[in-house]
């Protein structure tokens, strides 16, 4: 490999080339900073793949596991499901930290994201609606992602202590929960911002509704 050949580098990073090919890549890398930089990024991804054990790619039920299923069912019938409002959000927040760290910029990337978050990404749709009954006004931004959508809302007219849920309805009529959060005094006064992702193609997002956790309608925007 005397010229740049990125296509070898993926398999090289994963240690899957044969010894001869691998030597050729070594020789090229010794002389090429560009390919070394590319390789460093691929190796970063390899480390990330290491978070997942190989057993993650087995499907189906265990062999000979019926007794296990039966005793698990016995235990679970006596266990109430715990209602949790906060955990999904905490998980999402932690996920961002992890991803930012892995992509190499750490805190810097995280901060840039927050600063840039006001500028909608290209292809976003922005809609505003007010609800005369509840007095809430919401601006909704649907940001395209690869096959899914990131929904940002900014809402005024909420009460401190309101526990809100964001529900996204797609054009097929299915409703998805995109997260839940609590309105602080400050957010009630200044406006509350929230965001959540749904596995709905951006052009299939039909409407975004905010409800309280108790089920009361707050405001809806139709996209």
């Amino acid at each position: 490999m005397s010229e740049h050949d990125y296509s070898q580098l993926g398999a090289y990073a994963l240690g899957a080339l044969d010894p001869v090919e691998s030597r050729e890549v070594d020789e090229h890398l010794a002389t090429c900073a560009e390919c070394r930089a590319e390789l460093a990024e691929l190796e970063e991804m390899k480390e990330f793949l290491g978070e997942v054990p190989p057993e993650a790619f087995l499907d189906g039920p265990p062999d000979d596991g019926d007794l296990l299923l039966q005793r698990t069912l016995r235990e679970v019938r006596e266990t109430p499901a715990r209602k949790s409002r906060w955990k999904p959000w905490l998980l999402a927040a932690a996920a961002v930290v992890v991803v930012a760290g892995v992509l190499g910029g750490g805190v810097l990337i995280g901060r840039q994201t927050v600063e840039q978050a006001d500028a909608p990404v290209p292809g976003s749709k922005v809609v505003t609606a007010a609800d005369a009954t509840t007095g809430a006004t919401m601006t909704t931004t649907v940001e395209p992602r690869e096959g899914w959508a990131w929904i940002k809302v900014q809402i005024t007219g909420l009460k401190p202590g309101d526990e809100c849920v964001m529900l996204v309805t797609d054009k097929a009529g299915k409703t998805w929960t995109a997260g839940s959060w609590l309105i602080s005094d400050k957010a009630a006064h200044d406006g509350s911002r929230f965001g959540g992702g749904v596995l709905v193609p951006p052009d299939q997002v039909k409407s975004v509704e905010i409800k309280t956790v108790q089920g009361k309608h707050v405001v809806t925007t139709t996209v």
Partner: protein
Amino acid sequence: MMATPATEYFLGWAPAIVPTVSANQGPDAAETFVRALYAEHGRSVLAYATRLTGDRAAAEDVVQETLVRAWKHADDLDQSKGSVRGWLLTVARNLVTDRARARAARPVEVADVVDRPPVERDHSEAVVNTMVVLGALDQVSPEHREVLVELYYRGRSVAEAAKELGVPPGTVKSRTYYALRAVRAVLAGHNGEVAR
């Protein structure tokens, strides 16, 4: 309006994808929920726990406890397949670790300790790591996912993977490269360009 607390702020990359599953109430819902998880993920979680513990009986206890916890957290778990499995695998791993630690610390009280697993809150970050990666692998194309599974997770060479997948070795190599780029792009929340 500007200084919004971090927890309330939207986060552009959060891959939490959360379809609503109808109310998880009552013994029937519990049974349906656990049966579904077991049918889809049971083999994966049990195989993993068996490798970690080196003991099928201990591994079954871990799987049982993992599924019970999943039920307790059913509301949080309404997510994409990759993430659910990532959650289950990580909880299983942490249970194994906790049990090993408990055994090492208090050998005499093993039985008591095993009956009272520690509170769940400590593992959230690791849960996210595995969830995030599996979620990303769910979002890249099947061809991309497949070469990564063969080369990385099954430790196959390019030649072996080519035979297994029925494509030329050159295709395996270039797919591997683009697969790694695709994972990176998904994690960055972009199609192409990612932050360096």
